[in-house]
């Protein structure tokens, strides 16, 4: 519980760091924040072109290209938030090595702010998607689950990143490996397909992938206006908590010696 207490106590600092993260990422670039929307849109376009246009994938016979596009968007948004958080978060502590050596700073916040920055990008995209869905009249009361899903996703990612950012300090290759793993994970996550569409051989893989539950949750809330699959939600929620607490313990266990290794 000290973990939640810490997060709450530093909430303003986390917010400041997250803003800073944004500012730094786009400082000096011309398009600035436009990139934040441009990158996911480009990715969505690429997905649509490849799976919808060339491979002619459809969740079922009756669905249109637009519906398929929305389905991809619902999968892509949490994925981008998650993978941004993980890749940036893993490198975040090491990236601040100068600061860690010269300032007395709660460094467990760097991974947190990296994850938050990823989530903000996701949120902006989600708002855009909500407008789109609203125009099509597809929104329903089950949307209320969305914040809950976001929180679970954040906790899961933060826990994971606490662990990975520590390991990255000793094994600098970690961040490279993580980037690769993210590419692989992207393909076994049901972004451009649904869990049902996965072939029998791959079903187990998709089911073991925690991100599947997350994406499914988002789809249910946004697209199908269904209450999320309770079993999936409980599994993911439990996992998120477990990962968060374990990651926190690991980080705090090592934080005293970390400055000697960076």
């Amino acid at each position: 519980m000290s973990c939640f207490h810490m997060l709450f106590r530093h909430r303003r600092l986390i917010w400041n760091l997250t803003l800073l993260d944004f500012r730094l990422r786009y400082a000096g670039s011309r398009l600035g924040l436009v990139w934040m929307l441009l990158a996911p849109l480009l990715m969505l376009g690429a997905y649509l072109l490849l799976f919808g246009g060339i491979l002619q994938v459809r969740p079922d016979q009756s669905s249109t290209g637009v519906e398929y596009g929305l389905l991809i968007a619902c999968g892509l948004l949490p994925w981008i938030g998650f993978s941004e958080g993980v890749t940036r978060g893993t490198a975040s502590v090491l990236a601040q090595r100068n600061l860690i050596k010269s300032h007395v700073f709660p460094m467990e916040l760097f991974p947190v702010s990296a994850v938050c920055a990823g989530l903000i990008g996701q949120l902006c995209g989600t708002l855009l998607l909500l407008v789109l869905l609203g125009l099509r009249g597809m929104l329903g009361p089950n949307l209320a689950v969305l914040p809950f899903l976001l929180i679970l996703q954040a906790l899961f990612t933060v826990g994971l990143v606490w662990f990975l950012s520590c390991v990255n300090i000793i094994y600098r290759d970690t961040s490279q490996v993580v980037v690769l793993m993210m590419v692989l994970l992207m393909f076994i996550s049901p972004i451009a397909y649904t869990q049902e569409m996965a072939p029998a051989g791959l079903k187990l893989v998709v089911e073991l992938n925690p991100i599947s539950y997350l994406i499914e949750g988002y789809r249910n809330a946004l697209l199908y206006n269904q209450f999320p699959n309770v079993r999936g939600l409980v599994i993911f929620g439990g996992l998120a908590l477990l990962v968060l607490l374990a990651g926190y313990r690991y980080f705090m266990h090592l934080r005293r010696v970390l400055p000697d290794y960076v």
Partner: protein
Amino acid sequence: MDTAAISVKGVSKVYKLYRGRSKRLLDFFSLGFGEGRHDEEFCALDDVSFEIPQGTTVGIIGRNGAGKSTLLRILTGNSSPTKGEVEIKGKVSALLEIGTGFHPELTGQQNIHVSGVYLGLTQEEIDRLYTDIVAFSELEDFIHQPVKTYSYGMYMRLAFSVSTCINPDVLIIDEVLGVGDAYFSRKCFNRIRSFMECGKTVLMASHDLLALQRLCTRLLWIDHGRLMMDGPPLEVLRAYAASVREQEERRFRAKVPATHHDASSLREKGLIYGSGEILITEVKCLNHVGQEQHQFSVGEPLTIRMRYKTRVPVVDPVFVAALYRIDGVTICQAISSRDGVKFDKLDGQGFVDVLFDRPLLGPGQYVVSVAIFPSLDLLDQLGQTPYDLHDRLYGFQIEPLVDCALDLGMVLHPVSWRHSRGE
């Protein structure tokens, strides 16, 4: 006033050195569960204890790698001691490496805000301090430019201003004095002094011995991770200077013989030349008890000893020893014939001493040439062919004064004073 602001009890810091990475990873993962996978240990700090009362300014001196920074990092909480305890009362602020939180693409103003966040200040506090910071840095005209366009001096000025804007109870400084030009350097100096005057506790490590002496009331000398001495500045500085001198001396000694053995190659390079009837076989700088020495303090008696060996007997040669400043300016030349010294017939071996009983030389590095001439016509500017001449192959050093920051010049010339009042 007599409560300790900083108390350090038996602090040791051991770094584990690993030969393989996998061992290091294993040790890292199982931290606290298993020990002893590392191959070697390096003791950066060894059982250091001291207490610093509130409101005092204490300096830390020591050579590079002596453990100063490790100690300061432990005090600020950036590193944890392997053994021992550290206790600090009050809010600590550290200037370890300044300007490290700056981002080149952001403007000066944005960077002030960023650093404020890193220093743990709230938005309101930063806004309140902002004007002060800009005013102190004197960068009003550039504050809205990205810091990547700043010169190094401007960058450091901003960094120092930001780092010292906060108002801590204990200030820990690691070698950041003297940033910017002389003017700003003085400003920094005064700021630290005003901290002290407000009754804050200041602990600073520096290589600027004079600054330490001016600011501190007490010095700690750390060498090889051990606290060597703890006392009044002048005493500690003297002991420290003596030890540095000893080490320099050892380094010199290790270096010198090479030039001696290599007389033939030096001859080829034209650094030793002459007709060779009589040769200089060895040159040494000696102290007052006749021991070889390369570091002298101001006014310490110094002797230059030239050993010679004749190949054929020579009659009344002229011995010369010349001193140069490191940039080649001739300081003085001692010429035996000019001083009325006669040697008659020399055959075999012996030595000639040039005694500087009360040298007037100021602190600095000096280079020595020695030569033996058949005769020396002082009116002939070009000089004659020597029997043997060693061109600037030797040297010694006069140490800077511990208690004087002023450049007293090349010559500490004795003078007398006279004063008369009125017209």
